[in-house]
C-alpha cells in the first residue's frame, strides 16, 4: 500500500485539495494501484499547495502545486513511486525552506494527521503533559517563567508571570481561555495550529489548567475559521474519549474540560477583555483595566488568557525543559516565533525561526521576494495595528525591544509585503477606516477619532490645507495613543504615522502635481 498525503489545511482546501484527493483516489482505483490517502496538516508552504507527498523508502517526496488537471500526468510519471515530474520537489525534508527553519511548535506540521491521536503520541505528543501531571502547579509555572516565553498574541507579556498571578489567586473556580480570534491580516499561525495540530493546543491549555488550578477552559475561535472550529471540536472529543481531557486525566487527580466557542466576526474580540465579554454572551465591549483578567477574568474569576501560539509553545517547554527553549532567540525575546509571510510575496507561508532574524532574510531568502516581481516598498509587521516599515528598516532583527525602539511591533509575527504599486496614503486611510468599522465604541478617542482620522487623511490627500491637517492628524494620533482604553484605538496611529513618516511623498501628490 502506497501512502499519499494530501493536506487538509484551509490554505490547501482553498486551492482545491479536496478535489485533488478525490482525483488521486479515482485514478488509483482506475489503475488498480493500492493507495492510502492521508489528509495531513500543511507544511506551511502556501505557494506549493496543494502539496502532495508520497512516502518512499528514502523519505517523503513532494509534488506541488498540484491541481486536479495534473493528476493523470502525475500517475503517468509514476509519482506514486516518487518518480520525477515537473512538479516534483524531491525529498520534502531536504527543501531549504523547511530545512533552514527551527520548528519547535510546528515540529509536526505536514507530518501527521491532525486528528489522529496515535500519530500525535508517536510524534512526542503529550510528553509535556505527562511531565506536568506529576508536577506541582508552582513548578510548572517556574518552568514556563524560566523559558522566557512571552505572550505570542502580540503584547509580549511574560507568560510565566501571568500564570503565577492566577496560580496565587484564591478562588473556588479558575478558568483558562485561549484567544483564537486571530483577526490580524497577515497572520494564520493560530489557524494552522488548530487545523493542523489541535492536540498540541489541548495539551498546552491542560498544562496551564494544572499549573493554575483551573478545571475549565474555553477556546474562543473566530467564525471566519470554520475548519479550525470543526477540527478543534473533533480533537476535543477524541482527547476526552481517551482521557487526555475530562475527569482524573490519565488516572491522576487532575481534571480539565474544554469547550469551543465561536466568535461572530468582531475584530475587537481579539482584545482579551472584549473576548471575555463575548465568552459571557455579551457585546464585545472592552473592559477597563485594572482589575486584570488574571484576577478578575471570565465570570469574574481568575483567568489565564493566552494566544494559541503561547499555549502551543508550552508542551515543548515542559517536555524538553525551559533551557532548551530559552537557548533560542535574542535579548529578552526568547524561543522561536512562527513568522507568517503574507501578501505580495512569492513563497508565502509559515517560517518558524528564533527571534533575531531580519525581515530581509525572511522576505528574500525564505519568501523569494515579491509575488509580482516588483521591488518591495513597504512591509506591515504585526497586523493592522502594526507599523509600515520601509526598505531602510528591513535589517532590524525581529525582537520585541528592537521593534519597540523603532516605533514598530513584532506582534503576532505576521508580515504583509507590498510592492511599489502601493499607495501609502490609501493604507493610512484604511487603518483609520478599519478602526472605525471595528471599534467597540466604548471610548471616545477610538470611536470618534478613527472617523475624524479618515476625514483628515482625505483632506491631506486632496491637498486641502495640507500642513495644518498633517499637524492635526499627528495631534489626533497622539490623543488616540494616550487616551484609548485598549490597543485598537491605541495602536491604530502606528500604521498611520509610520506611513506619514516613511512615505511622505504619498501624502502630497496634488501639491506636487500642481508644481509640475
Amino acid at each position, binding site marked *: 500500500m502506497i501512502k499519499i498525503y494530501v493536506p487538509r489545511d*484551509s*490554505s490547501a482546501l482553498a486551492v482545491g485539495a479536496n478535489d485533488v484527493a478525490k482525483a488521486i483516489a479515482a485514478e488509483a482505483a482506475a489503475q488498480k494501484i493500492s493507495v492510502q490517502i492521508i489528509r495531513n496538516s500543511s507544511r506551511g508552504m502556501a505557494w506549493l499547495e496543494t502539496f502532495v507527498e508520497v512516502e518512499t523508502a528514502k523519505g517523503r517526496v513532494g509534488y506541488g502545486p498540484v491541481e486536479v488537471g495534473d493528476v493523470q500526468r502525475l500517475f503517468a510519471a509514476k509519482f506514486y513511486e516518487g518518480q520525477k515530474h515537473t512538479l516534483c520537489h524531491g525529498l520534502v525534508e531536504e527543501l531549504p525552506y523547511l530545512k533552514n527553519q527551527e520548528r519547535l511548535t510546528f515540529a509536526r506540521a505536514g507530518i501527521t494527521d491532525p486528528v489522529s491521536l496515535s500519530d500525535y503520541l508517536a510524534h512526542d505528543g503529550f510528553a509535556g503533559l505527562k511531565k506536568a501531571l506529576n508536577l506541582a502547579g508552582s513548578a510548572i509555572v517556574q518552568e514556563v517563567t524560566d523559558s522566557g516565553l512571552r505572550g505570542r498574541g502580540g503584547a509580549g507579556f511574560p507568560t510565566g508571570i501571568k500564570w503565577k498571578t492566577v496560580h496565587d489567586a484564591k478562588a473556588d473556580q479558575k478558568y483558562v481561555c485561549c484567544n483564537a480570534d486571530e483577526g490580524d*491580516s*497577515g*497572520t494564520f499561525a493560530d489557524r494552522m495550529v488548530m487545523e493542523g495540530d489541535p492536540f498540541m493546543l489541548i495539551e498546552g491549555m491542560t498544562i496551564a489548567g494544572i499549573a493554575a488550578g483551573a478545571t475549565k477552559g474555553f477556546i474562543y475561535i473566530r467564525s*471566519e475559521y470554520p475548519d479550525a472550529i470543526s477540527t478543534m471540536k473533533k480533537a476535543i472529543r477524541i482527547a476526552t474519549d481517551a482521557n487526555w481531557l475530562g475527569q482524573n486525566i490519565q488516572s491522576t487527580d487532575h481534571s480539565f474540560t474544554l469547550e469551543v466557542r465561536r466568535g461572530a466576526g468582531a475584530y475587537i474580540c481579539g482584545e482579551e477583555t472584549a473576548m471575555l465579554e463575548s465568552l459571557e*454572551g*455579551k457585546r464585545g465591549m472592552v473592559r477597563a483595566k485594572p482589575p486584570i483578567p488574571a484576577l478578575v477574568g471570565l465570570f469574574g474569576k481568575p483567568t489565564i488568557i493566552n494566544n494559541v501560539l503561547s499555549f502551543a509553545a508550552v508542551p515543548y517547554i515542559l517536555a524538553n525543559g525551559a533551557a532548551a527553549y530559552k537557548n533560542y532567540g535574542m535579548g529578552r525575546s526568547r524561543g522561536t516565533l512562527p513568522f507568517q509571510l503574507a501578501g505580495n510575496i512569492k513563497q*508565502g507561508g509559515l517560517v518558524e525561526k528564533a527571534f533575531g532574524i531580519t525581515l530581509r532574510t525572511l522576505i528574500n531568502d525564505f519568501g523569494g521576494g515579491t509575488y509580482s516581481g516588483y521591488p518591495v516598498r513597504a512591509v506591515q509587521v504585526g497586523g493592522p495595528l502594526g507599523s509600515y516599515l520601509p526598505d531602510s528598516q528591513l535589517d532590524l532583527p525581529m525582537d520585541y525591544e528592537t521593534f519597540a525602539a523603532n516605533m514598530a511591533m513584532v506582534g503576532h509575527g505576521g508580515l504583509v*509585503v507590498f510592492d511599489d504599486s502601493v499607495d501609502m496614503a490609501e493604507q493610512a486611510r484604511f487603518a483609520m477606516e478599519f478602526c472605525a468599522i471595528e471599534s467597540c465604541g466604548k471610548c471616545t478617542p477610538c470611536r470618534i477619532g478613527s472617523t475624524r482620522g479618515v476625514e483628515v487623511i482625505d483632506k491631506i490627500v486632496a491637498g486641502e490645507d495640507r500642513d495644518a491637517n498633517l499637524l492635526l492628524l499627528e495631534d489626533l494620533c497622539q490623543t488616540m495613543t494616550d487616551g484609548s482604553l485598549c490597543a485598537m484605538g491605541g495602536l491604530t496611529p502606528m500604521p498611520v504615522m509610520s506611513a506619514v513618516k516613511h512615505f511622505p511623498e504619498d501624502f502630497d501628490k496634488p501639491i506636487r502635481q500642481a508644481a509640475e
Partner: protein
Amino acid sequence: MAKTRTLIDIKSGKADPAVAIAARYGNKPDALLEILHDVQHELGFVPESSLPAIANALNISRAEAYGVATFYHDFHLKPTGKHVIKLCKAEACQSMGGRNLVDAVENFLKIKVGDTTADKLITLEATYCLGLCASAPAMMVDERPVARVDVKKFESVVEGLRT
C-alpha cells in the same frame, strides 16, 4: 380571573424555533452567540421576532439580546441570499490587488458589498481576514475557503452556485 397581560407577554402562539435551540445550550446566557449562530444556520437569518423569545429563555433583557445580535457583523437580522460570499478587504489581500477585485466583483454581480443580487442567489459581504494571507486575495463562499481569487475564478465560482 384573567391574568393581566403586559407588552412583554404578547407573543405569537407558535413556539419560536429559537426556544428549542436555546434549550440545547441549557438556556445559559453565556451561550448567546452560539444560540444566535445556530438560529441563523437553521433559519438563514436571525429574525427580530426571535430575540424576545431568546431573551426570555436566557433570562436576559430584550435590549441585551438585541444589543448582541446587532454588535456582531456575522448576524443578519434580514434574510440574505441563498449563498453568502465574504470577500476579504484586509491588508494582505489589498497587497495582491484586493481593491480592484472588489470593484470588479461589484461590477460583475451588479451590486455593492453588503447587498444581495436581484435573484436572491448571492449576498456579497466584506470580511477582514480569512487567514489565507499567503495566497491572497481570498474569499469565503458560505463555509468554503477560496484563495488566489481573480475575476475569472470568481465568475466560475458564481457559475457553480447558479447550477
